[in-house]
């Protein structure tokens, strides 16, 4: 359902075109249908009943990273991304989901299918990889650069409550699927750092995928169970914060849940209350006096802004400040750090050519800094950047991994 307020917004598009050149997708394709203005105008025609939601429209609607650059740049104040997201939900019934997405989303919303898949995935990933052709890619990412499954999911490696002596604060930790199943190092780093700072960490059992990949594909009903379950588990009054290490999960918990529930006509009260406590781990760590604990580590680091952290949540300075605090580590800003990496979740395998072009610019900007480390608080961005770095000896990490390293001098 597109809400009446969103519908009315299309009339605020004055067609100035200021959204064209900031749009990474338009800058690859250079035709209007790829631009935010073009899409808004088509949505307007559909709302007015002058155009049907056709195949071509559907194709254009998904030729978008949902990076939200247009929304923050729109002088008229259109929430372009929300309009597109609502429209994706609107056309879902007509067009359905591609089978790959259907399969993935079924995994992420079910609680029985996933363990089964993970068991066989872990058992077979090594022999299976050996069978893959060397040159093959998933979207833009070579098989050889795909991450491996954690031997044991992160949540199975820790108790539900990780106690601290005389805890200063208590936090809930939303691990997200990427950290839980693929990037355990990030999760371990988060837990170690918090522990060291005397924070009690609770990892609520039964937490589910945040659902963002599902509802951004338009499948809102499918994601509803995940949303409601997570809200139920994370609505706890006696904790100081809800921490997230993944920009995307953070955007979901902090903002998207509220929008979606509102647009679906569900109650938003609990989501709003929970959302207020949600913080990116870099934001949370900004409140601590870390300097006295940090040991020097050598290196030159640059930082990439995830769309879901910068534009969805407005977090810009904290991760940089965090990196800047680490002695010995030289921080260098890359050109266009705030430009989307070109991953966009499933965008990169739906539009590998466009994605390669955008990521190519990102990789060049990274190389130009001469850094040997790229930090970014989003698993999607890290995957995309790592997958497109080629043979460059540049490590791609979460900022908190570097903090953990500087705290312990242990390698993550």
């Amino acid at each position, binding site marked *: 359902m597109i809400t009446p307020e969103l519908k009315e917004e299309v009339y605020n*598009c004055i067609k100035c075109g200021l959204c064209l050149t900031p749009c990474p997708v338009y800058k690859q394709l250079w035709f209007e249908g790829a631009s935010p203005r073009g899409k808004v105008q088509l949505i307007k025609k559909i709302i007015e009943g002058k155009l049907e939601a*056709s195949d071509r429209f559907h194709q254009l609607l998904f030729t978008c990273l949902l990076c939200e650059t247009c929304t923050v740049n729109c002088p008229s104040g259109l929430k372009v991304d929300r309009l597109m997201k609502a429209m994706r939900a609107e056309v879902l019934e007509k067009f359905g989901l591609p089978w790959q997405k259907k399969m993935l989303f079924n995994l992420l919303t079910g609680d029985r299918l996933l363990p089964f898949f993970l068991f066989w995935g872990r058992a077979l990933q090594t022999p299976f990889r050996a069978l893959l052709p060397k040159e093959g890619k998933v979207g833009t990412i070579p098989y050889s650069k795909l991450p491996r499954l954690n031997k044991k999911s992160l949540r199975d490696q820790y108790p539900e409550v990780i106690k601290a002596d005389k805890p200063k604060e208590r936090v809930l930790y939303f691990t997200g699927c990427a950290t839980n199943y693929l990037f355990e190092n990030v999760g371990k780093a988060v837990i170690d750092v918090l522990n060291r700072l005397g924070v009690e960490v609770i990892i609520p059992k039964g937490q589910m995928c945040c659902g963002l990949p599902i509802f951004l594909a338009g499948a809102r009903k499918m994601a509803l169970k995940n949303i409601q379950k997570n809200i139920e588990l994370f609505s706890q009054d006696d904790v100081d914060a809800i921490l997230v290490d993944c920009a995307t999960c953070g955007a979901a918990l902090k903002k998207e849940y509220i929008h979606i529930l509102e647009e679906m006509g569900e109650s938003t009260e609990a989501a709003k209350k929970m959302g207020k406590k949600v913080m990116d781990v870099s934001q949370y760590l900004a409140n601590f006096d870390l300097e006295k604990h940090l040991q020097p580590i050598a290196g030159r680091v640059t930082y990439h802004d995830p769309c879901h952290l910068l534009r969805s949540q407005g977090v810009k300075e904290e991760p940089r400040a965090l990196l800047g605090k680490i002695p010995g580590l030289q921080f260098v800003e890359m050109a266009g750090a705030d430009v989307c990496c070109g991953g966009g979740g499933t965008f990169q395998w739906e539009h590998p050519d466009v994605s390669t072009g955008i990521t190519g610019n990102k990789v060049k900007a990274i190389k130009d800094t001469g850094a040997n480390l790229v930090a970014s608080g989003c698993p999607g961005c890290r995957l995309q950047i790592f997958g497109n770095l080629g043979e460059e000896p540049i490590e791609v990490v979460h900022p908190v991994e570097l903090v953990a390293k500087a705290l312990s001098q242990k390698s993550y």
Partner: protein
Amino acid sequence: MLKPEILQKFISILGPERVKTTKEDLLTYSYDAFIAESIPEAVLFPKTTQEAAEIMKLASASRVFVTPRGSGSGLSAAALAKEGGVLICFTMMNRILEINCANRYAVVEPGVVISELQKELDKVNLFYPPDPGSATVATMGGAVMMNAGGMRGVKYGVTRDYLLGMEIVLPSGAVMNTGGINAKDVTGYDLTRLICGSEGTLALATKIIVRLLPKPKTKRTLLAIYNHIDDAGNTVAKIIEAGIIPATLELMDKQIMKALEDFMHLGFPLDAEALLLMDVDGDVEVVEKQAALIANFCKAQGARDVRVSQSEKENEQLWVARRSAFGAVARLRPNCLVEDATVPVSRLTEAIKRVIAISEKNRVQIAVLAHAGDGNLHPLILFDQRNKEELVRVEKALDEIVDYALSVGGTLSGEHGIGIAKSKYLSRQLSPTALEMMRAVKKTFDPQGILNPGSFLESAA
């Protein structure tokens, strides 16, 4: 109607990817930043002169209407397929071909976005001054065809003043060059400047050669806040009269300040009536001196506060704000027509008063913006296109602004062009002889009348 066999030939020239024909694609090319809509029959994206020439050869052989287009940020519907036919869109032909530091010129393809060129030039300490509000969107081809002006007009002039030469494709498909790379050139008629501002009615530009300046050593941005808009207008006249030429001299009224404040939260005072946004640039000593002088003028004319921006970041934000003014007023009402009648600068205060009076009389919301330094008013007329009764009042207000501007020796359009937005007024400013001459020129270039049909000359009353 475009015959299928002709469409097929266009596809054989460009390939299927660069010929868009779906209903959805065509709808996205039915508008620019004006309020009119007109759906083309196909949109063609050439990448080379050769392709553009072949398109025109085919078009002239089969009498297909062709309308050239860039990013579609124009404000007068000049780049819409008003009489049907195809659009030839240059956004994919967008390479900077040469930046020549020794002779200070650049050669670009028409689809290069103005600010992209400026960014590249900045790296080598060169400067292309024309700076329309839409510089981050608009293409060089569009700027040339519309003779775009902009914020630095007061000191640096407009696109025409930097244009050295072009490679053009005539409606017949013939390719020719005008002008060249030389700073001085009086060989033959100045076709370069004839085509500049022709609104895409004479030829397609496929290469553009522009003159460059050394980058000014330094720049200061000043912000003066006024309780009375008249005082702001008077300040402008005083500054110009005193022989100081700031690089930019922009005026905004309180409605625009409010819309921008909603968007960017810069701390504009919402109780003030107007502000002036000014740049001075050049050598450090000169800039310091001029900035101080201007600040004094502002205070003497009643500015309640004058601020000199403290950092590059603040400068940048202020100018992003100014660029966003047109878009930001959509926060006030859904549609906006940007009038751009221009008057001699000494009349500025009077002109602003007149606009306000016209706004009140016709009960039409008008926000006042102006490239004040060159008398180029930009009254932003705000309305809702869906309200027919309101549209009538809007039309009336527009008529009255035009009447006033012409009565004091002003012009219909300072920089946005005539297109279809102002064609009904054209004969008020141009004599029958002048119109006849223009039509003769058009006929010479385009005897069949296939290039941008329905443009200002044809639709002129």
